[in-house]
């Protein structure tokens, strides 16, 4: 495989990690969602690029899904939810931005270390990709656990899932990728609708996940 294609794939994957860091940095919902949209766009590009270099045409579908669904539909939906709920104020971050960034850096190094232990026989592109994907996943989780707000948790989860898609597409000739990405989109739709439903049914006065938890069935 020529160096150029390799580098481009790298560039895209790396920038995905970078964008994940940007997400960590955001402390406003709108900004977060926008950054996520960007994340999705870049993902779509990298998937498309993979489709091109592996000439695996079904991957274009995945790319399309990523572009349409994640980069457009979901962000718009989330925007509307936030409008409805009127919570376009700050995200209540559970942990300060600084520590979060540090943790993020630690996670990235961790994933690098782990993946570099992999013997080089494995396809180098796949190997590097995996390292990036793993860091994106961990960063996504980090977003989920450092944010109090359900919307931002959804965003975190989606970025995590982007990492998955990146890994899946990076794996040469992996079957079921499209199906999986579809399945995941449905899953995310469920989650978003769930957040939405809870609001509409007036069941919880905010989508602060804490409010979902005040009943434990055994509250004394």
């Amino acid at each position, binding site marked *: 495989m020529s160096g150029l294609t390799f580098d481009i794939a790298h560039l895209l994957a790396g920038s995905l990690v970078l964008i994940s860091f940007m997400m960590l940095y955001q402390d406003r919902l709108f900004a977060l969602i926008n950054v996520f949209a960007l994340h999705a766009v870049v993902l779509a590009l990298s998937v498309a690029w993979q489709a091109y270099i592996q000439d695996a045409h079904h991957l274009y579908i995945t790319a399309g899904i990523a572009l349409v669904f994640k980069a457009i539909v979901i962000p718009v939906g989330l925007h509307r939810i936030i409008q409805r709920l009127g919570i376009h104020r700050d995200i209540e971050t*559970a942990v300060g931005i600084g520590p979060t960034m540090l943790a993020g850096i630690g*996670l990235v190094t*961790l*994933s690098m*270390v*782990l993946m570099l*232990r992999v013997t080089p026989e494995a396809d180098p592109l796949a190997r590097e990709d995996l390292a990036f994907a793993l860091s994106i996943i*961990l960063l996504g*989780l*980090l977003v*989920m*656990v450092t*944010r*109090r707000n359900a919307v931002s*948790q959804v965003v975190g989860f989606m970025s995590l899932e982007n990492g998955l898609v990146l890994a899946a597409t990076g794996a040469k000739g992996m079957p079921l990728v499209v199906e999986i990405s579809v399945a995941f989109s449905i899953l995310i739709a469920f989650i978003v609708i769930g957040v939405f439903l809870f609001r509409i049914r007036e069941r919880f006065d905010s989508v602060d*996940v*804490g409010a*979902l*938890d005040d009943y*434990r069935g*055994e*509250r004394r």
Partner: protein
Amino acid sequence: MISTVALLLCGPAALLGTAILAAAASRHAAATRLVYGAALVISAALLVTVAGHLAGNPGEVSAITLPLGLPWTGARFRLDGLSAFFLVVVNLGGAITSLYGLGYGRHESAPHRVLPFYPAFLAGMNLVVLANDAFSFLLSWEFMSLASWALVMAHHRDEANRRAGTIYLVMASFGTMALLLAFGLLAGPAGTYAFDAMRTAHPDRFAAGAVLVLMLLGAGSKAGLVPLHAWLPLAHPAAPSHVSALMSGIMTKVAIYGFIRVVFDLLGEPAWWSGIAVLLIGGVTAVLGILHALMEKDLKRLLAYSTIENIGVIFASLGLALAFKANAMPSAAALAFTAALFHVLNHSFFKSLLFFGAGAVLSATGERDMEKLGGLIHRLPVTSFVFLVGCVSISALPPFNGFASEWLVFQAILLSPELPQWGLKVIVPAVGGMLALSAALAAACFVKAFGITFLGRARSAAVERAHEVDRWSLAAMAVLATFCLLAGILPGFVIDGLSPVTLSLIGDRMPVQMAEPWLSIVPIAESRSSYNGLLVFVFIAISASLAAFFIHRFASHALRRGIAWGCGFADAVPAAQYTAVSFAQPIRRVFGGFAFRARETVEMPAPGALEPARLKVDMHDVTWEIFYQPITGAIDFATERLNHLQFLTIRRYLTLVFLYLVILLLVLALWP
């Protein structure tokens, strides 16, 4: 020709069948009579079979393997000298208890909670004694616990009984776990769970030590060794009286069987220090048990505590046997071991008898609290007489059986200076002193038990209404009383009967006793020590009747009834009598200080003030406070802390997952 053990297995099978039928028809009127009748017949049949086996060829071993239980081991059963002896104990007890139950069971308020489990309990005990592989053993063992637990919970509406049942089953499964670990060690990683395989494979010294400790924990918790006895005085009295008799008189013996089977049979040659451990625990158990019994005022709990004392005596002489065996003194070991088994038999007799008596009192008056009894000797003449026999026997007074076995124990102790190890030289006499002390205290305890319950004047109206109990119960008690006397005046028969067991486990036996003149027993040599219960009995009988004869021949026969001397006050109220607590007061002042941290506080009113003076005694169950409260406290603490994890937010739970993931990945990253 069907083998003996196969024949014997039909017994438990039949008992289980009875249990199932009882579960089906327990509410039927005739169920009580049928179930106890069936149990009686089956136990008697088993007894006859075993007796035939012993009479025929006691040394012979018959084994069988059924395609049940653990797949690659199968359910193995085996009949040898030891199991034969304990089968006698179990089924003799079972038969007589069933006889008693025929009468006592009629008063049962909730027969449907007793009848199904009673035969199951008997079956469980029989199976434990017959089992020949670890799995069948533990299965039967725990089944036995379970059945007895159900019986303890028979009167479940009483909060105390529920608590007793819970503590009992928890302790039981603790014991089972200990046994499980012991068997795990004996079986080894390959998992050879058959006893025959364990016999041949000798564990190394540490493993052997661990097994001994685990057996002390496992079998000891069931037998009621201090400090594992906490459940016993709660659970035994909670059950219906005939079941209490089974639990105290028989089940504890099954526990002892387990201990003997593993430590004397499977474990091979013991280490000398194992003797020390068992001796010490036995001695302490004996003293503490009987002291607790002295402080009790609930008749059945008193009996339960005295069970603990007797278990202590048995374990002490087992420890002695271990020490002798470890030092290759087979004849001495045989003496100590015989003493232990003899006491097992005796205790099963008089403890069942006493519990039957307590049950009779309970059904006649509805009272277990001695402070509300008294004067029953006038109301229940027969019961009081047999109960008296039981008291004399358990107090180790000649010529009854309790004395015979304790005499053997003392003879064994007197052989121990030959032991080489210094540790034993120091421990053994101390334990001897403890046993002597516990024997004396036992006498005091049963003076109290009989005196407060049956003598004096009635302390409550319930006693006035009491009537003698039914024939079945009386018959059962009379049989046991006869056994107590017979085993006391003819100990030679029992000792010779035990010789196959000692031969198989110790490799030696006591000299043949039946050959001795005048049926006296001679452990070592006549010049050294000998005892002839029969002759002592005859002498006492003759001299007493001589005295009576002369009196009635020459002295006056005049007799006048009058009121008792009340220090000038005419007929004091019954409440003025000594109560159980006040009777125990002098002994409490002597021993209570260290055993119960007992404190007495007296509030004297000012001179001339009219309010009464108050004497307040507060006592502590020291073992409970030392061993059990910390555990419960720790569990409370832990649960309280951990319980917060039930009340976290989703984000926190996610954080847990996240952290766990990161930790695992770090581990992996640092993996060499």
